[in-house]
């Protein structure tokens, strides 16, 4: 047994391996690094902030911007290591367009232009290419670290937290007699006449001016009423404190005056869970996706040396 191990080539191999690991232990391969940003990049961030907000960024704001920019650099660098720029159509088209712009396209096929652009390393200095590669990296990270699945309990909790925001609007069922602007002066008297004669809404319609969307509107939310009458009408109607089975008016709108029969009203109410569960699920999915991406980027950052 031992005789079999007593071979020079085996000793060579074992000693070589041991030396290899010893060297790595004594002189480890440094992690890839990103940063620091060049002064011009920091200045550019500062200028962008100023252009957008009209103020110079506070130190913590600038620090956060620098950190975000370094994350972008890291994702870009990782994408280049994975050679993603070689297999993406957006990058390809962008580089070909750049070659045209540089007037280097004469007599060359698209494939040749693309290869030449890569050889010239145009992809390293192009912001659009960079952005695209970062997007793909984000997709890869998300594919590796799938977001948490949304469950019924989370939906139920979100429903409880967002009750106010999810309120259902009131509903009005109304009929109307419309008076165009030139007939506005008739409105008060006409309403008195209708009420005195106890006319039904349908019977009163004979006094109306033509109104294109019609005369009867069932179970309309304020937003739906505003489509046909304008927002001012809705405000004026609500201000008139309407009650079911009564006439109100004249209510002014964009188009003229309206005598309104309130057939029925339904007050605003809280949404039922089944009405909004799809919306809640979608919002949670988006939120979980963002969180998963944030964690994945943080994890990737552990493999990099980030120099601020």
């Amino acid at each position, binding site marked *: 047994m031992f005789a079999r191990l007593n071979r020079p080539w085996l000793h060579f191999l074992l000693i070589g391996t041991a030396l290899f690991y010893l060297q790595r232990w004594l002189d480890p391969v440094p992690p890839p690094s990103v940063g620091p940003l060049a002064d011009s990049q920091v200045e550019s961030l500062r200028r*962008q902030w100023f252009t957008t907000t009209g103020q110079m960024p506070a130190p913590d704001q600038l620090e956060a911007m620098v950190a975000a920019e370094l994350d972008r650099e890291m994702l870009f660098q990782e994408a280049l290591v994975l050679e993603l720029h070689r*297999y993406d159509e957006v990058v390809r088209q962008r580089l070909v367009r750049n070659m045209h712009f540089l007037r280097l396209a004469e007599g060359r096929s698209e494939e040749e232009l693309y290869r030449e652009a890569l050889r010239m390393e145009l992809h390293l200095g192009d912001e659009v290419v960079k952005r695209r590669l970062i997007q*793909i990296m984000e997709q890869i990270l998300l594919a590796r670290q799938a977001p948490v699945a949304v469950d019924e309990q989370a939906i139920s909790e979100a429903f409880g937290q967002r009750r106010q925001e999810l309120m259902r609007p009131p509903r009005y069922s109304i009929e109307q007699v419309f008076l165009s602007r030139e007939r506005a002066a008739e409105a008060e008297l006409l309403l008195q006449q209708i009420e005195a004669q106890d006319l039904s809404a349908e019977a009163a319609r004979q006094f109306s001016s033509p109104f*294109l969307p019609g005369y009867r509107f069932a179970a309309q939310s304020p*937003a739906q009423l505003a489509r046909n009458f*304008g*927002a*001012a009408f809705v405000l004026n109607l609500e201000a008139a404190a309407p009650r079911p089975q009564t006439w109100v008016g004249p209510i002014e709108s*964009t188009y003229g005056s309206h005598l309104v029969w309130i057939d029925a009203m339904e007050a605003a109410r809280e949404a039922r869970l089944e009405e909004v569960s799809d919306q809640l699920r979608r919002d949670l999915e988006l939120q979980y996706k963002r969180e998963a991406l944030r964690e994945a980027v943080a994890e990737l950052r552990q493999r990099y040396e980030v120099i601020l």
Partner: protein
Amino acid sequence: MTTSCSRRPHSRLALATGFFLALLLAVLLASSLPVFAQDSPPRDYSETRQPCADHDPLRQLYWGDLHVHTRYSLDASTQDTRTTPTQAYDFARGATLGIQPWREGVPVRSMQLQRPLDFAAVTDHAELLGEVEICTNPAMAGHDSFYCRAYRWWPRLSFFMFNTSAAMGNRLGLCGDDGELCRQAAAGPWAEMQASAEQAYDRSADCQFTSFVAYEWTGASENLGNTHRNVVFRNAEVPALPISFIDSNKLAPTLYQQLDEACIEADGRCDVIVIPHNSNLSDGYMFQLRRPDGSPLEREDADTRRRFETLVELLQHKGASECFYAAGVSEDELCAFEQLPYDKFSGKFQSWSSEPPQPEDGFMREVLRDGLRQQQAIGSNPFQPGFIGSTDTHLGAAGAVSEKPFYGHGGAGVPADEEVPPGLVDDPEFNPGGLAAVWASENSRDALFDAMRRRETYATSGPRIELRLFAGADINPGVCGDLDFVAQGYRDGVPMGGELQALASAPNIAVTARRDPGTLAQPGLPLQRLQIIKGWVDAEGKGHERVYDVAGDADNGASVDLQSCQPRGPGFDQLCSVWQDPEFKAGQLAYYYARAVENPSCRWSQHICAARGVDCARPATIDEGLEGCCAAEHRPQIQERAVSSPIWYRP
């Protein structure tokens, strides 16, 4: 206990009573049937959904945007648009949308519609490659292939393999022998587009919002004329993959053949229409009178074309395609509205590659006349589309058509990815686009799709002007004073998009428009006038057009103060007219459409110029990015409008 009924003997009285009751039931049923049919028409949905509670046989007006790009479109992503299809639909329904530039993952700008839309379609470009999708999406067949593992984990080796493979002119092994797997991989974004549309679609009886599964076929002629078309499906039954420009061998007729095979003639209830857009930038190639091989169109070609292209997008970010205007060439000055200065989009970047626009470039008035000529020549009209407007937003901002503020196109023009442009937010020739107005009985996919197929639609440049058009020999000349204009219109005529056949005398054309009420923050403007545009072809094949003012007043004195952008002067809340063509010839093909025009207002660019205090006489007031305010071609004032689908007359 046993029931006594079962043992009760039949009596004559019971028989007579039974007979009487049966008779009564039959009479009641018979008498109630017509009422039932009128009040609640049976609704044959092509999909599973609850019937809409809000259903009107006289049809209601729905507003939408059928041209919306998100992050999946190459040209949107290059401007750092991050909007997903789901977010685009949410925005259309009233949610806030964050847009570029981004700071620390947070959008600097955000948008929200003051008035949500009723329907929308995300139409990302179909021309996507699948290889990266395969290798980056664990769910894809091929994701764990040797090539993809190498691609993800051993890039140097994959570099060698990929390049060797490419050099030999082969697709990678991961694509399969015929490249099919990579084509399938493009299904990833396609699947997300479908899922987003499904999530947004309200299948409940509320019918609050309708989404359509759709995509853009991004075609071009050999000289780079635009032949882009949006492909819109009736329901969720769609082909497994979008048929791209490349898939259809770069030919629209091939697209139609493939859509027939993959959709119309396939099992199930797939159905589809195709909506060309930006024919103004097609250099005449969008509506060609010849087949791809150069031979003349035949009847079958024309039938196919008309069957698919039931609509055309008349107004959008990249200009208007209704009609052409140049002083001395044409008379209708309203046609100068949002007319682009080039005939191909490449002219924007390389002026040598395009010419100034010409009437034959693809402006619809001329195209419709070409259609009439084809009707004369081969007995079938290939170019008979109705009109819609949309945005072509590349921010995913469906229906964001306000002139103030305009956030830019987001796909071409001035990018906002690094910072908000300091002056004009986009190139001055772009505009905020328009809306699609659809007359449908309810807000369901089937009802809207049917309306788009029968062309009962119209385009607006943004404002929600209400416009109705009917034509028929029996329409009452006094219908404008009646309370049931619409009911009479349907009873006695055909609506916009319809056809009239063989009349002895001129039809009555009833048209009415109501101003956009706007919102409290941005009230709508009054109308200035209502017009009928007639196009026809004489016996020699020569084309003619005439514009008639049929209501309102072109000289109403209304104007806009260009310094404050405040409108001045009177206008009309509603306009209505019943008009007869004084030059009607019973034997002559013709089309008629309506145009409602608002009082003058500031264009989006002038809103910015005025707010920034630009005075072109004082150069010191022209800050960076505002040079366009004082350019010779700048148009500070516009007249917003609604343009109906035509009604065709065929002897």
